[in-house]
């Protein structure tokens, strides 16, 4: 290091930065220092919070510099922000262009000190450790969205994929019941939440974070925070697929989630009733607005399969969703017949894909999963 620079550094290390307990060097307030001939020019960045330190500091700096060899004149410039300092310095360098600068240039010798590094950009998206993030959505509640999310996730596991599941329905989490984790709480390790593991899937649900008896009403900003926490602070293992069970309906939470996760796309769950299809259309519109592709539609409860004789009876007129997807130009992933097993399985923590893998419903879910894999492969 240049002997003059060393001398200046030693002198600056003796100047206290107000009552902060730091010296001037530690405080990192010297943006640049330049010595031209017998004149030293200092540029300080002191934010408004530390304004009161300015006078004492400039006096101390002037005295310190004048005590250094060959410095007779001192110019001190104080600005409030890093950006202002940038501009000041750029203007100054332009002004001096072509001059032969003498002596020390601490800012040229040691960038790390003279110019703090730019802060790292802030990420606003999560779950990048998954190959695909699939949102399972519905225009309204009660159409079997969560059942679809769970059985779809388990069918993907059956296809050999590594899958995680997030219950983003913080208003009415149903994963603990369906996955059989009621009354269990996610472990906290350090600052991280550990997902719960069942049937070969790691998952998170509000129902495993707070007591069921605590009725929590999540209002807008809080809902947002709680979801961001589940995305950010969970020690997700990563894998091929992250399936997110979205809250029913079309609101801010759904859009935020879609954007915070750079989702691959959304699967819309509906029933064949016209009303439900209208709601489904609303959900489709919402995703289109934020450029989330519609991966396809799943139709639930289209028929009843008698557990005794296996006869299939359509409950509503079948195929509404199929026509709808064709008209709207996206894939129809399949319909799932309602079966006693689907309902019972869900209630006992044994989803039908696991409890009755040979059932018509389980087969339907497996076909839907296979189709989804295909759709996603095409998209890539």
């Amino acid at each position, binding site marked *: 290091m240049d002997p003059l620079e060393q001398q200046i550094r030693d002198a600056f290390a003796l100047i206290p930065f107000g009552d902060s307990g730091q010296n001037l060097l530690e405080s990192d307030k010297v943006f640049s220092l330049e010595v031209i001939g017998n004149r030293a020019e200092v540029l300080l960045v002191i934010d408004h919070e530390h304004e009161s330190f300015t006078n004492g500091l400039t006096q101390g700096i002037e005295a310190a510099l004048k005590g250094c060899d060959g410095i007779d004149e001192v110019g001190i410039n104080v600005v409030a922000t890093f950006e202002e300092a940038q501009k000041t310095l750029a203007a100054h360098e332009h002004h001096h262009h072509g001059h032969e600068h003498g002596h020390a240039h601490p800012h040229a010798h040691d960038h790390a000190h003279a110019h703090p590094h*730019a802060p790292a950009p802030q990420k606003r998206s999560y779950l990048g450790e998954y190959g695909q993030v699939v949102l399972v959505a519905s225009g309204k509640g009660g159409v079997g969205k969560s059942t679809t999310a769970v059985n779809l996730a388990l069918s993907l596991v059956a296809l050999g994929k590594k899958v995680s599941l997030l219950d983003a329905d913080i208003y009415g989490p149903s994963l603990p019941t369906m996955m059989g984790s009621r009354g269990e709480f996610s472990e906290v390790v350090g600052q991280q939440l550990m997902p719960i593991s069942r049937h070969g899937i790691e998952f998170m649900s509000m129902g495993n974070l707070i007591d069921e008896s605590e009725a929590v009403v999540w209002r807008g900003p809080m809902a947002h925070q709680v979801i961001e926490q589940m995305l950010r602070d969970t020690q997700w293992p990563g894998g091929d697929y992250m399936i997110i069970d979205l809250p029913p309906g079309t609101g801010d939470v759904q859009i935020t989630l879609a954007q915070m996760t750079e989702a691959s796309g959304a699967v819309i769950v509906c029933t064949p009733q016209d009303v439900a299809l209208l709601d489904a259309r609303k959900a489709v519109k919402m995703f289109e607005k934020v450029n989330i592709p519609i991966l396809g539609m799943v139709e639930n409860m289209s028929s009843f399969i008698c557990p005794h004789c296996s006869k299939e009876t359509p409950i509503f007129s079948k195929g509404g969703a199929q026509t709808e997807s064709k008209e709207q130009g996206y894939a129809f992933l399949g319909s799932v017949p309602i079966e006693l097993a689907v309902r019972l399985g869900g209630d006992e923590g044994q989803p039908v894909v696991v409890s009755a893998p040979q059932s018509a419903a389980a087969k339907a879910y497996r076909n839907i999963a296979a189709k989804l894999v295909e759709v996603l492969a095409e998209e890539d």
Partner: protein
Amino acid sequence: MARSPQKYRVKEVFYDGVVHVIFFDGAHCLYNYWELRTGCTCAKCVHEVTGEKLLDDQTVPLDIRPVASEYVGNYGLRIDWSDGHGTGIYNFQQLRDQFPHKTQSVD
């Protein structure tokens, strides 16, 4: 529209004299400030139609460095440089496949 492969998705970016970009497949790439600034492909630096380079590299100070930056969607990074230039978006796919860089083994 679906997600780009992990190879082109970025986990973390930070600065300490060079730009560090850590991709989701584990690759850790280092980019030189001056090379990155002079390699800017924005409309001010490269003619949109002819592809002719408009930026005179000599005008970029040797001590150029980022002062701020932000992610652009999931595909790129916009950097505000110390020379006041801030319209360039560095596409992660291009950074990974085309832009000269050094790699650092996983820490």
